[in-house]
């Protein structure tokens, strides 16, 4: 309680606010992250309850929803009983069964946030938000706007508030209706305390007031806080910080109050009789919540248990090593690549596939020809020191007159509406009845031209460009190639061709397009990285260095970059002309394998799309899948990471004959060449925030699509190119739209690692940030003993032996057939 009666410390409160506000970057840099990152130092379930009591978020499915899942068999009785017994003891089974299944509980939620500030409405009869929000949002959006407005914010001085001062100073009209607020604006060294002294007057309430106020529009406040911390997330830079934004809001509030009551009104803190509240006090016990946690665990283990049973089966049934390999292919670890690998392998039994983060261990900024900026192509937290440039010819970008801003002007608008207007009708007609790619489409193949030339190799003595080195030296290349090969466990037995397949997506009318591309490439397609990696691995000098380090790549082996479009299920290969004559024939054959596999993949994916009849032929289904990627009216071009729930870190043999229903991230790893877990550390360090981040963003957007998700995308309106709001005057919506999460089952990510438990434990506890994810169970962790095949579940910081509860696992011979009939999540199958 000492927090409440402390003196108000502005910086500390601002810091505190920043910590809890949504941390979603502007749309172009949309990257998945844990929505409740602010609570990550708590245990997962404590965080759920706490954030619910503080902010009113719904953080877990409701009792009726769980009961429905139980009725539909998604939560299994044996598992539920098991969870009750472990948590509550054998003897209490019946009591708790009864509570879980039949008792009624009041689920009303009375969050702490907002209670103090709501007294404006109850005690003063003034709707402050209605008066303040419109102008506040509008000013902010215009200030941050990246290029929607024709006449942009006229001043961009030292910051938001100083720009407002400049505007206010030489103006015939004022932002404010009254005098005092205007005078305060120009007061030197204006701070939050001064304004709160006027508004609230009782210092004990200050922090609570600011939290109440900012969490009425967390979207806008969050974007301000994010831009303050990552100014580079806007191409057209804007200086702003949370403090200025709050100051302006407080000024507008004073103005609104003065306008209604004159300058003499009683400050809120003096009028309200209630005691100050500690917003962040410990959550009180609730039986309902305990029931929900039991249900949640039962829900999760109903699925986990099947998977672990399958893994155990795989471990027991050894798979013969492949001789005389036809080709090898690296894919991104992304859950969407899970099925394509299965199809490729089933079509060519001599090929071998690997999964690894889709930036292929090469981190750099990329500048396409004519680009005015650099694009970061590596995981978001990394800041690369290298620049890769595109040179030589490239196709001209196409434009679309419909986005011209002249249409909104008076005179040009007059001409355009009478001419172009009729062309629009034609375009609309065409798009509805025969959709094709247009300049408005965001397509992955456009990211890198097939004919593009890149500067990848660093030339001795060339200048640094804005602190970046142009290209990599051979040593730097060798480091990266070695790092990747060792982390996935490929150090010998190279096939003649090794494909390096990045991935990207295609969509139109999709404001969240960045979330559809490769997360390891900062929300961009992985084509440049694939091409760069292939170049490095083919480099003679690099191979010589690798040879010294014990990796001997045969001379005839060639690496070929490629890009898989996960929406359209298409593939493009780069630098095919350099493929040697001896490999050429094989390559042609392999292309066939890929093409067929893509068709199968499209068919498998189509089972989730209601508008496609999955029973049709592969060609027809593939056509429909391609069509939906470019249809204006299709809010679900693909389902992205929906249903993700697993991450397998280990050899392909662990999962090769398992049907995991595109629900698993897959990172290839061989414990034998990494006995100390050095490479494993790199893998898990990335998987926790990336895989865990994706999984939890889906989780929270699914359980509370209103507050933690973006709601349905159908009414979304693009604000300043940085975010979306529902109408023209609402708050920015963070999280994922309902169309992305509706088929998602909200369960945590289970990471399965093939290594000795003690090595894994040592590895994850190396860095506290990584360890937090596992310790607090934001992701679940299971170790598969590489020799005995025994399973160990990581719980309360210990690996505990785990025996699957179920004993039977289903089998299927023809996956394509099995899949076409089912629309919902399927159980894990053994393919044979």
């Amino acid at each position, binding site marked *: 309680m000492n927090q409440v009666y402390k003196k108000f410390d502005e910086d500390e409160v601002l810091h505190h606010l920043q910590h809890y506000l949504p941390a979603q970057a502007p749309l172009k840099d949309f990257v998945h992250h844990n929505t409740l990152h602010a609570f990550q130092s708590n245990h997962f379930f404590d965080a759920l309850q706490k954030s619910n009591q503080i902010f009113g978020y719904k953080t877990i499915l409701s009792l009726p929803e769980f009961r429905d899942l139980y009725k539909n068999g998604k939560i299994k009785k044996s598992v539920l009983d098991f969870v009750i017994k472990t948590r509550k003891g054998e003897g209490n089974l019946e009591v708790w069964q009864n509570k879980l299944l039949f008792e009624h509980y009041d689920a009303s939620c009375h969050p702490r946030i907002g209670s103090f500030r709501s007294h404006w409405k109850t005690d003063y009869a003034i709707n402050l938000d209605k008066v303040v929000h419109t102008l506040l949002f509008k*000013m902010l959006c215009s200030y941050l706007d990246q290029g929607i407005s024709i006449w942009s914010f006229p001043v961009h001085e030292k910051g938001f508030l100083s720009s407002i001062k400049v505007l206010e100073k030489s103006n015939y009209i004022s932002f404010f209706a009254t005098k005092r607020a205007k005078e305060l604006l120009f007061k030197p060294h204006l701070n939050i305390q001064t304004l709160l002294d006027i508004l609230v007057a009782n210092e004990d309430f200050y922090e609570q007031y600011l939290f109440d106020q900012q969490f009425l529009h967390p979207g806008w406040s969050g974007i301000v806080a994010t831009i303050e911390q990552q100014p580079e997330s806007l191409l057209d830079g804007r200086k702003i910080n949370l403090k200025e934004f709050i100051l302006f809001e407080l000024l507008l509030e004073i103005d609104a109050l003065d306008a209604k009551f004159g300058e003499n009104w009683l400050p809120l803190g003096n009028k309200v009789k209630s005691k100050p509240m500690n917003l962040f006090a410990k959550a009180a016990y609730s039986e309902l919540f305990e029931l929900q946690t039991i249900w949640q665990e039962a829900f999760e283990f109903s699925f986990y248990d099947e998977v672990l049973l399958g893994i155990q089966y795989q471990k027991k049934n050894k798979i013969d090593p492949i001789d005389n390999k036809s080709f090898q292919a690296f894919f991104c670890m992304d859950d969407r690549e899970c099925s394509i690998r299965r199809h490729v392998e089933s079509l060519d039994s001599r090929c071998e596939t690997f999964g690894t983060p889709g930036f292929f261990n090469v981190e750099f900024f990329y500048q396409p020809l004519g680009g005015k900026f650099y694009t970061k192509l590596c995981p978001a937290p990394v800041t690369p020191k290298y620049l890769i440039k595109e040179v030589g010819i490239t196709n001209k970008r196409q434009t679309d007159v*419909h986005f011209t801003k002249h249409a909104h002007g*008076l005179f040009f608008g*007059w001409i355009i509406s009478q001419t172009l207007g009729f062309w629009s009708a034609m375009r609309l007609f065409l798009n509805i009845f025969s959709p094709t790619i247009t300049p408005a489409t965001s397509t992955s193949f456009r990211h890198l031209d097939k004919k593009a030339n890149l500067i990848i190799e660093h030339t001795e003595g060339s200048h640094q460009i804005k602190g970046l080195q142009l290209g990599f030296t051979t040593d730097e290349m060798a480091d990266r190639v070695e790092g990747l090969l060792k982390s996935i466990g490929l150090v010998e037995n190279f096939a003649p061709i090794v494909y390096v397949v990045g991935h990207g997506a295609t969509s139109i009318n999709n404001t969240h397009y960045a979330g559809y591309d490769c997360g390891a490439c900062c929300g961009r397609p992985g084509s440049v990285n694939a091409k760069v990696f292939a170049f490095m691995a083919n480099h003679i000098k690099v191979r010589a260095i690798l040879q010294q380090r014990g990796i001997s790549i045969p001379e005839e082996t060639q690496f070929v970059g490629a890009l898989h479009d996960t929406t359209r299920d298409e593939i493009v290969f780069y630098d095919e002309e350099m493929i040697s004559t001896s490999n050429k024939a094989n390559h042609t054959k392999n292309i066939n394998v890929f093409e067929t596999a893509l068709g199968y993949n499209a068919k498998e994916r189509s089972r989730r799309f209601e508008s496609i009849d999955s029973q049709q032929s592969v060609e027809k289904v593939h056509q429909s899948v391609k069509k939906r990627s470019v249809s*204006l009216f299709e809010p679900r071009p693909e389902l992205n990471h929906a249903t993700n729930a697993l991450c397998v870190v280990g050899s392909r043999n662990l999962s090769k004959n398992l049907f995991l229903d595109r629900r698993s991230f897959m990172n290839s790893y061989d414990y034998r060449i990494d006995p100390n877990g050095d490479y494993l550390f790199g893998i898990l360090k990335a998987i926790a925030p990336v895989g865990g981040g994706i999984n939890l963003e889906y989780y929270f957007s699914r359980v509370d699509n209103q507050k933690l998700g973006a709601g349905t995308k159908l009414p979304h309106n693009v604000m300043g190119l940085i975010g979306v709001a529902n109408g*023209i005057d609402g708050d920015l919506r963070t999280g994922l739209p309902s169309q992305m999460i509706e088929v998602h089952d909200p369960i945590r990510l289970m990471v399965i690692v093939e290594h000795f438990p003690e090595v894994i434990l040592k590895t994850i506890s190396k860095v506290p940030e990584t360890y937090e994810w596992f310790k607090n169970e934001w992701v679940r962790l299971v170790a598969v003993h590489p020799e005995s095949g025994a399973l160990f579940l990581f719980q309360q910081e210990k690996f505990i032996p785990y025996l699957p509860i179920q004993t039977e696992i289903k089998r299927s011979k023809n996956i394509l057939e099995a899949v076409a009939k089912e629309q919902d999540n399927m159980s894990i199958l053994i393919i044979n």
Partner: protein
Amino acid sequence: MESLLQYFLVLPFLGFILTLLANDKKETFISRVAFVVVLTQLIGIIVFISGWLYLGHLDLNLRELTLFHNKESDFFIDFYFDEITAVYMLMGALLTFLVTTYSRYYLHRENGYKRFFCTILFFFLGYNLAVLSGNFETLFLGWEILGISSFLLIAFYRDRYLPVKNAIKVFSIYRIGDVGLILAMWAAHHLFHENITFLKLNNYEMVSEHLSSHSLIGVFISLAILIAAAAKSAQLPFSSWLPRAMEGPTPSSAIFYGSLSVHLGVFLLLRTFPFWEHQTSIRVLITILGLFTSIIASLIARVQSSVKSQIAYGSIAQIGLIFIEVALGLKTLALIHFAGNAFLRTYQLLVSPSVVSYLIREQFYNYKPKQQTFEDSLSKKMEFSLYILALKEFQLEWFMNFILWRPLKKVGSKLNFIKIKSLVLLFAMVYAFGILTYVFKTNIPYQIRNLLPEIFAFMGMVMIFKAYSERKSPYVAWLMIVMNHFLIALAISFNEKVGFNEILLYLTGIVIAGAFGYLALLALSKNEKKISLNMFSGHVYEHPKLSFFFLLATLGITGFPITTTFIGEDLIFSHIHRSQIILAIMVSLSFVVGGIAAIRIYARLFLGPHIKTYHELPYKSS
């Protein structure tokens, strides 16, 4: 050939009923009905227009249905078809067809899939009725349907605060437009002594003969029409509703506010052009209004930083120009301009989400730090002032609030002492007194007697204002709306020659709708401990059926064409003398504000964020 016209209403009506009765899980059935209906209509219209052109494209008029007839009044439905109707009908069918086809997939799995298609078809019915109308009464019918379907589509996401708030706002502006139309109808009735058809307005000699002796009333009618047109087409000072209407799913915004609904003001002007063609002052006024609107709206459009509000203001600016074209008599140009603008804005809205990836790519390749705009040539102070003014939308929101809503609320809040019992008592006393005076009206000095209608209408109006601003009891608000109608009936009955059956026609609908509404309130009170108008309660979450039932009662009590009150209202109006302009204004205000008050009760009880918190709830700022 005329007789074919009615089938263009039967078809949408049939579609509306079919979707209304459909099971809301049957997506395919619902969308197929909509698709087939609109496509058939489109083909029908194309064939019809071709035939009509081939046969020499003469104006068609069809007197369809007489709803009420006595010595003084003749209330009938009438259809009219000329090139204006042809263009508007074709555009309507074409755009609705494209948008319904689009929405079949776009709305897939959305809550309210059925509601969406139902409302779209209802809108389509109203639209066709309005553009086919041959007299003011028929036009008004269509106009009302458009108003209510607009409300329902803006408040499509009824569990959120802003859509519901904005839906009420737009509905209110629409009702103001309705005052214009009601007054125009009333004055036209006195000018022509009949229920004038648009066909007859083309008769220059007839019109100018009537106007020559009553030029003032002619100006009055034209002004009333202009108010109706300006409100519907978002011209000054009403403009700020259009961007706020963009709350529904994007395709509905596209068809309503991008294209069809917003151009109906233009239609009204085109339709009544022969009437005000020779009133130079009106033509100048329309030109000035259009000019001001287009300049101001394009200034506002320039500073918008959200896609949809930019498109909305861009469109308003073009409609301002169309107003000028109509005023200048450039009918063909206006029609082409309408079609082009409608297509363009529909498409722009539909592709608006793509703007992010497109413009960011453009920015990536073509970035220039600061674009020169024409405003840079102004002095800094001028530039900044203009910018802030444009950002604040020229204070239009504040202005509407200041001249309209705030005074209403002020008057209403003066009556806060009234509780339900005192209300009933008060009303009983006033009404008993009223009936007494009516019975003994011959004994009352005529100076006083002549004032009585105004007095009673004034009381009714004040009640309506109170109903509009009531913050507590929905019963009080509801009863006041009902009582207002009774007071109006009383007021009018002092005018001679009002038939008993006319009053009966008027009040039956009110009584039925009033009773149903009251029952619905009782049922809601029984389930929920406390019902109040103080905030949005969102009871539709638990009581969707009751909500629908209450909506019907609300429509009934506002004179929506589902009860006889609709005809009654018109008849009552025709009994207001030409000299009783104050009375006409008061009664029409009562109708209009009464409608808003009723919708407000519905919205506050059933829409908005649910007051129960056991399920996920949106932020109030969304």
